[in-house]
């Protein structure tokens, strides 16, 4: 500090003199101010981005309750879950047998029928009605709709065929039809989501 003693203005000396800790006071103030503004700016950014994610009223509609007692073997219904079609299908013994006969290793998205249904309800196949290719609604759940060459669902947009366990067998779709989270609250009631 000997060479700065000659400077008459001590406050100026504070700013310009190299100090022992290697940080000038002005640099410290600068870094602190810019950091505080930066952290504050990022904190403000969070709500501005978060506001675009689903609002409370949308989330409140995000579970669906279904009564599956009226569905006959071989029949399917279309329900709505999170504003998207949901396929609920009661499989016939022949369809179950067909699904179980396929070697799992040969599948594009290997899954057994048992993995895609709930224990004790192996005949209830509940999947999203959204093709895993680009999101069209496959045919096969409605009365008289074609079911494709594997007897499950067929997407008319780009020709993906799903089998009786709604697994992808042919066409461009990468995955089986998605099985949403659901549980049986009684023998006939299902809560999806």
């Amino acid at each position, binding site marked *: 500090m000997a060479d700065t003693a000659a400077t008459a203005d001590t406050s100026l000396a504070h*700013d310009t003199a190299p100090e022992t800790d290697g940080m000038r006071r002005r640099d410290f103030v600068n870094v602190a101010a810019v950091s505080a*503004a930066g952290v504050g700016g990022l904190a403000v950014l969070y*709500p*501005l981005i978060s*506001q*675009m994610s689903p609002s*409370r009223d949308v989330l409140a509609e995000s579970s669906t309750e279904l009564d599956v007692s009226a569905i006959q073997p071989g029949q399917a219904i279309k329900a709505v879950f999170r504003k998207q079609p949901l396929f609920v299908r009661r499989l016939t013994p022949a369809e179950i047998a067909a699904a179980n006969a396929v070697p799992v290793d040969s599948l594009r998205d290997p899954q057994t029928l048992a993995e895609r249904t709930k224990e004790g309800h192996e005949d209830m196949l509940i999947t999203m009605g959204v093709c895993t290719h680009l999101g069209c609604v496959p045919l096969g759940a409605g009365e008289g709709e074609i079911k494709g060459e594997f007897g499950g669902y067929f997407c008319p947009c780009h020709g993906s065929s799903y089998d009786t366990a709604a697994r992808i067998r042919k066409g461009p779709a990468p995955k089986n039809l998605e099985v949403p989270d659901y549980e049986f609250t009684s023998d006939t009631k299902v809560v999806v989501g």
Partner: protein
Amino acid sequence: MSFPWAKEYQPTNGLTKFLDEKLPLPRLVYNAVGAGYPVPRNLSYFWNFGVLAGFFLVLQIVTGVILAMHYAANAQIAFASTEHIMRDVNWGWMLRYAHANGASFFFIVVYIHIFRGLFYSSYKAPREMIWLLGVVIFLLMMATAFMGYVLPWGQMSFWGAKVITGLFGAIPLVGEPIQIWLLGGFAPDNAALNRFFSLHFLLPFVIAGVVILHIWALHIPGSSNPTGIEVKSESDTVPFHPYYTAKDGFGLGVALIAYCLLVFFLPNYLGHPDNYIEANPLSTPAHIVPEWYFWPFYAILRAFTADFLIVPAKLMGVLAMFSAILMWFFLPWLDRNPVRSGHYRPLFRKFFWFGLIPAMAVLFYCGGAPAEEPYVMLSQIATAYYFLHFLVILPIVSSIEKTEPLPTSITAAVLGSDKEVVKGEAAEPVAV
């Protein structure tokens, strides 16, 4: 566009060199709010409010565009969609309160900005165009704020829309057809709400455009300053960056603390509870008031209670209210004294602090008070003074006033003498 000693932009790397050649945007910013803009060294905190106004304009546009993602401009569901924003949308309550109070803060800083201009006569040559554009911005702000207040479709929204469009009904002969045309109906309804929403979205961008012209016009003569004397030499100025970016940054921090106190602790303090009641065309609230920032002009509107010759009172009020602002367009030519700053104009200063400011305060208070005595009479006195001040007192004062001696230069005003500062040291005013 600037003083000859303004620093020139030097692109330092490949990217900035490329940009400077193809689209010199960094150069534009450097010359506008960077080190390339020399600014008088003696600016007080009153000179923060232009930047603050710009900040709040951006804040309003950002929060407003976001609110428009969740709001539905339909009279059937507008009120419900506002409540949806408050209750369902993530952070919706914060965004709406930020927008509503942002409008108030925009007006607070713009009012201070205008009063700075009035006291320091910033409107005088060579800065008339900056002032005129500023008045245009203020008028656009008032239109935007009014239409924004209609959107939540509460009781005050509805009756505000009815009363304000009713002003146009005061125009002789064509008034009523104009009012019906403005509303797209006989009373505010879906058609009015939709067009107000459309214009409320559009006008802020028009304001942003006029703000660019305002700043462009400012950069030709450069900023004014508290002495009101022009920049003479390099020692009178400092570069905008870092000196005024730092000072404006500090001012912004203080403004944001006040703003956050309101947004997070008193979000409805400046609003009216009746606007949380859905619009009802069959029931007028007992006490209709506009938002606080319109109170002075609302008081002028209500000050005219008797017909004047052949002019009905209703028309007089409307004319007076619009004239109260339109008059500002003539201000540069009403005040002819070449001395700008109120600091050197003793007579002007007296009328400013003991005439104009109290009159504005009275108008402000009476505009928010019920339309009964003594507020009506007080409004009338204050209105009379308001117009007298600009149309009579200011022209007379500016011609008869004996002004105080001005400092020889800005540097002399700051340091006592501009001889003390050796050229070259002027860039280091940290020593003062």
